[in-house]
């Protein structure tokens, strides 16, 4: 496919997604609220919301579009996967900038992927973010439109996340768990130039992109390592900040327990752990759409995460100063006019 047609095809999908995010969502919400008023009910649970919403014709379309716009984005005729596959050699050459043996990138060719990771093609990305050499580029490209209303500002939220972390102190050693292509790792390395930052991830194709991006930005204080977040191989008590972004909702609850264990292990006493993730909507209708999204977009651990008692799990591991609060993905984000994820800033401190 040629460049212009690919861009036009993706532009069409993005425009449709923006329409879905705003007009289709607000109309669905209005119809749901009208129906509740008509029936004289105030649903409090997801099941009660489902009883009403799943009978609305518009909901069938809303759900269909959520799943199929993503199928088009990744796997359609003008999808990211075929686009990068056709250009495999040239695009891989472009990111092949890390010299052999450079400590910025430490891969483990014997890495065994966990079953949960292989069982679901996350985000409906065929083959997931790990099984094809171009998967890191596909994922990086796809992330531009995860929050379709942000447009070119999609990267800003990671810098704002780093800024919020900075408000709580300046770290000297950072572990960024499940760092992917470095969308948060790089902003952390830039925000904390005196700190040594390590990003770990299971997916070699993403780590290659991350290391390339770091070199392109001239960053000297960051490195990437292929490792599971539950077994990073870092020394105990070696970092004073552990982070992750959009990670916890992608792993089963039994893994989250191990993630917290690993964070507690690698942190120095008094060190901080901060996760940016999609957690819990108090509003039942928003929760209904969120849990549905998890199923529709191949993110099956969204609902299990939202139903976990994270504060209790953190307390059990000796974390203190636990703070869980909404995070605005953009300064003007507004749930009344557009569908939004339950962006949440989750922070705690290892006891001193």
């Amino acid at each position, binding site marked *: 496919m040629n460049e*212009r*047609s690919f861009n*036009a*095809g993706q*532009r*069409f*999908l993005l425009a449709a997604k923006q329409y879905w995010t705003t007009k289709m969502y607000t109309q669905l919400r209005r119809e749901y609220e009208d129906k509740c008023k008509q029936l004289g009910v105030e649903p409090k649970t997801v*099941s009660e919301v489902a009883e009403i919403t799943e009978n609305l014709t518009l909901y*069938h*379309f809303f*759900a*269909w579009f959520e*799943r*199929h716009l993503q199928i*088009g984005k990744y796997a*359609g*005729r*003008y999808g990211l996967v075929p686009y990068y596959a056709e250009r495999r050699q040239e695009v891989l050459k472009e990111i092949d900038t890390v010299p052999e043996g450079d400590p910025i990138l430490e891969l483990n060719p014997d890495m065994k992927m966990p*079953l*949960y990771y*292989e*069982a*679901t*093609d996350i985000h409906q990305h*065929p083959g997931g973010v790990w099984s094809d050499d171009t998967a890191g580029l596909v994922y990086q490209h796809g992330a531009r439109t995860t929050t379709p209303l942000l447009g070119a500002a999609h990267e800003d939220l990671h810098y704002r996340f780093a800024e919020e972390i900075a408000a709580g102190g300046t770290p000297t050693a950072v572990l960024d768990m499940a760092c992917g292509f470095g969308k948060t790792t790089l902003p952390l390395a830039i925000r904390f130039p005196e700190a040594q930052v390590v990003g770990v991830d299971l997916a070699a194709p993403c780590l290659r992109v991350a290391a390339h991006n770091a070199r392109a930005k001239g960053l000297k204080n960051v490195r990437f390592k292929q490792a599971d977040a539950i077994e990073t191989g870092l020394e105990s008590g070696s970092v004073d900040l552990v982070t992750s972004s959009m990670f916890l909702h992608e792993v*089963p609850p039994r893994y989250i327990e191990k993630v917290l264990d690993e964070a507690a292990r690698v942190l120095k006493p008094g060190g901080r752990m901060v996760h940016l993730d999609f957690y819990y909507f108090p509003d039942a209708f928003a929760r209904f759409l969120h*849990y549905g999204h998890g*199923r*529709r977009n191949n993110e*099956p*651990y969204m*609902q*299990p995460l939202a*139903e976990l008692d994270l504060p209790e799990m953190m307390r059990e591991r000796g974390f203190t100063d636990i703070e869980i609060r909404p995070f605005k993905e953009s300064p003007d984000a507004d749930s009344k006019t557009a569908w939004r994820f339950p962006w949440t800033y989750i922070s705690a401190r290892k006891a001193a």
Partner: protein
Amino acid sequence: MKSPRDYVIENNEPATMRSEQIFFDDPAVDRVMGVLFSLAQEHYVLHDRVRALEELLVEKGVVSAEALNAPPRDEAAAHRDAAEFAEALLRPILGVQTAKGLTGRFSLARGKAQ
């Protein structure tokens, strides 16, 4: 009530062995929507390419923007063309045959053994 984890899949069955999710009362609608939406995207891509061609033609002075946007030379022929297009698009909704044959829905499930 089902556990929230019932929908979690933890085996490595390939995608082609898993049936696609269904959102409409009749799964046929899900599939037709897929066909229609692919066509809509293709339509947009072609629209974009025609626009690129037009812009280039005007820029190179092959045609003028006024000539490109002028009304059809034969208004009646344009209407006939639009009517043919509309009929081809909408005729299936009438639900009638184009060549004489059996009518309605049939099933081979019932009756004597075949």
